[in-house]
């Protein structure tokens, strides 16, 4: 199994539930957490940084409800996530074994990864803002959507980057970096113009 599956959004852990949680539990926990979040926002001093964090927390809770409250979308999401993690492992094994098919697996993995992140970290989070139950509890409105579209794009890319950084090197040979030497190089460049 790959490194603790980081980067693949886990809606169960967002709600603090395990994967066998019943839809009733999902609703109950969602309402409790959303209520706490809304009252925290009402008390907090809103800065640019806190606005981004609160909006993201709210979008994640809403999407968790939207995905997990019914068994159909929940199973589809969870199976897609598990398949993606398995594909990452398959690619790593192919790279380790210098398998000729590694490139094909990599392409498939990258395509599915992008599609997974776009769907669950961007599209569904925005779609949840249109859902009646989510709107009722989170008071999500058009202004939230307007701000969230940019924030969610960054969030998706951030997760994407986090995943890419732990994957095997493909475009370049694995580098051997001596960061002391790097520091000396920068110091040299800065001193050049003095």
């Amino acid at each position, binding site marked *: 199994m790959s490194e603790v599956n980081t980067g693949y959004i886990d809606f169960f852990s967002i709600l603090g539930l395990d994967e066998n949680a019943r839809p009733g539990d999902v609703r109950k926990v969602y309402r409790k957490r959303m209520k706490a979040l809304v009252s925290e926002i009402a008390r907090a001093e809103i800065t640019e940084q806190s606005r981004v964090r609160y909006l993201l927390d709210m979008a994640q809770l809403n999407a968790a409800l939207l995905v997990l409250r019914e068994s159909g979308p929940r199973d589809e999401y969870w199976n897609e996530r598990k398949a993606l993690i398995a594909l990452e492992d398959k690619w790593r094994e192919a790279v380790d074994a210098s398998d000729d098919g590694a*490139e094909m697996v990599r392409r498939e993995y990258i395509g599915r990864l992008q599609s997974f992140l776009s769907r669950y970290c961007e599209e569904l989070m925005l779609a949840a803002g249109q859902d009646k139950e989510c709107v009722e509890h989170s008071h999500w409105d058009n202004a939230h959507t307007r701000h969230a579209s940019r924030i969610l794009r960054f969030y998706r890319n951030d997760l994407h980057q986090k995943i890419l950084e732990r994957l095997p090197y493909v*475009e*370049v040979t694995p580098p*051997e970096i001596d960061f002391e030497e790097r520091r000396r190089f*920068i110091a040299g*460049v800065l001193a050049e113009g*003095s």
Partner: protein
Amino acid sequence: MFGKKRNNDTHEKQIDPELITKAFAKAIADGDIVNLKFLFGPFSPARKTSPERFETEKYSYMIAVDDQENDPVFADALRMVGSPEIQKHIETELAANRPAQLPSELVLALGDNAVRLKKYTSAAQAYELLRIRARMQEQTLELADEALDVGDIKKAARGYVIATGLEYDYAAFPEPLPKTPNYQMNALILHGEYPLSPEDCLPLRETSAFLQIALGYILLNNEIAARLEKRSIETRTEFLRELVRMRDPGWDGFLARYREAIKLRHEFAERIRRANAIESGGESDLENEIDKSQGEDPVEMPRALLGRTIDNGTWWQYLKELAYTHPAAILFTTRQLIGGDEIIVPLHNDESPVAKALGLVSE
């Protein structure tokens, strides 16, 4: 003619290995990531399977000229590319029918040369491939902050310029790309709301708040600029002065035009004052007649600032072009509605240490 096959088409393409080595070395020495990727690409003239040839005119830019061959940076790159391991790697990758894997040693050397040559977007791409970009950025900022601690403003400014030059835009479509200067759009955002009172005008903000905005704008990065917030106003002012001159070598030329625009603004204000005085009971005199005959077009002010006329130009067109030619200039302008037209006018606080440091006010 027809029916006869030409035999020479079936010959295998011959490539001078020295040409390949020199082309790679040139890409490394020039800090040119696009050329390096192209040399490994499917249509590379270095590939036997490609119909492209180094000897054709269109690839002359890839071959080092005599002058460059004597350059020590090129000599280093040539030595690196010519090493047996790299040569073997290049041959293998060029022969393989799949996307090439670039040798990390070459990519690192290319990135370093790009930094030296101030080709920051190229350096950012090279470091990103090696997954060291963010750490290089952080190390550069640490060294720049150390320089600032000992009062070496020039070195610090250089560090901040390099670090912000290595910034990446992960939200770029269709794939992350280096962040590029976009003063035109940022200037519009800064002047997005019409100032309803003098306090709303960007150039008249309190010095510390003004410096924060100005540094974020010139550095193209508010987060990195926030590292400077705790520094004294004097340090930040000196730092901004250094940055402005680094970003805009033509700043002194702009200053002459700025003073001209300020003169026009004073003249225009004086005409308005006289016109108001006449309307409220005064009488016309010869001086006013002369003023009228000279014309009172307020658009002269943005024209003077920009140094040219934009046909039917609106305030934002002048602002955008001004931001492109002299990024810092828009920090000392504001929007002004005159009659039915909105224009940009020069504005600064005569007492501001920033305006003095940047040469807008004679000390």
